[in-house]
């Protein structure tokens, strides 16, 4: 059977297996654990001790606690990845056997609140090789040189600050152009902008 939150594929076996573990936790505590898992997915620190306290009532072993976090992580991030709305997610989770209506609806309410921030975060984490941070410029005017007494030419200095995603460092790429070359660069860039606008 195909599930939208799994990307129109079958639900992985381990997720099916852990749904029954989720059912052991009360729906109120499940919503709080969801909030912690969402914090982790959004890049904030997860508070593992709080989760341990919340699961202590259900008498889960440490392996089960980790499995609970893993399955909630998968459900929430996969639903955001495939842009599933919270209604469909709720009905699909109930089909998988998440028993009471409170469990599924509580989970989906937490999901709905954070869906767009989750998607923004996933977009930011997508594969990116390098990224332009900023451009700095300076225009000089050369008056004279050892070769020619009256030069009177403008000179453009550009520094591109590029973030290399591989080593997470900013690299500065300095470029120096004469006025004509700079006009060519600007013309090419303007054409690129036009092309991007018209190709959509």
């Amino acid at each position: 059977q195909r599930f939208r939150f799994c990307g129109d594929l079958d639900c992985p076996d381990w997720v099916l297996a852990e749904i029954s573990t989720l059912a052991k936790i009360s729906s109120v505590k499940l919503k709080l654990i969801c909030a912690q898992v969402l914090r982790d997915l959004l890049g904030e620190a997860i508070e593992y001790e709080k989760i341990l306290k919340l699961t202590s009532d259900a008498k889960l072993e440490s392996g089960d606690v980790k499995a609970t976090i893993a399955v909630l992580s998968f459900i929430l991030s996969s639903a955001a990845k495939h842009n599933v709305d919270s209604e469909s997610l709720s009905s699909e989770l109930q089909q998988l056997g998440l028993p009471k209506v409170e469990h599924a609806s509580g989970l989906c309410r937490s999901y709905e609140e954070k869906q767009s921030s989750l998607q923004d975060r996933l977009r930011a984490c997508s594969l990116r090789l390098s990224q332009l941070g900023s451009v700095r410029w300076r225009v000089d005017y050369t008056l004279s040189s050892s070769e020619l007494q009256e030069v009177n030419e403008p000179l453009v200095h550009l520094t591109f600050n590029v973030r290399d995603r591989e080593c997470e460092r900013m690299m500065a790429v300095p470029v120096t152009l004469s006025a004509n070359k700079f006009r060519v660069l600007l013309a090419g860039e303007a054409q690129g902008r036009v092309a991007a606008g018209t190709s959509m």
Partner: protein
Amino acid sequence: MLLVLSAEHRAHLGCLPRVGGAAVGELGRLALEQLRRGAAPRACEAAARKLNIGVDTIQHAVEGLVYLLTESSKLMISEVDFQDSIHVLGFSDELNKSLLQLYLDNRKEIRSILGELAPRLPSYHSLEWRLDVQLASRSLRQQIKPAVTMKLHLNQNEDQTAQVLQTDPATLLHLIQQLEQALGEMKMNHCRRIVRNMK
């Protein structure tokens, strides 16, 4: 299978009868620590002072025991073969028995340590991917050129490296097909026979 001990090895182990039973246990423990964590010259010095023997002699004895244990564990020699191999050293029965016990108690652990020393190739850690479509370039407008960009993260002895690859969807499908064929080989009769025999 018998171990052949070189003359130098025999000379190193030759001091064991002199030190007495309890000290042999201590030297055995030092040998195992050296296998687990590497050489510990301070521990050897402490043992030398306690037993009133030269540091060099103690060091040789510990190294001799280390070599004896690793060679025996590596070849997984039987009790009888171990006893016959050390018989040539001419030790007392008691000493032979303690050496045998040292070997039998620890050979599993030594084998697992030796197993980790084999060189390893880079192994898969994770794969990030991205699907792009090139719509226009400086030279040509109105294009549709899909490309898949992948970043393959590899692990090699705690070093993480990443390799960036880019391909078009047709080549990617071909790659997937080749990998599926490789997996399919496992189900062929030839592979099945070998796997059955290894079990």
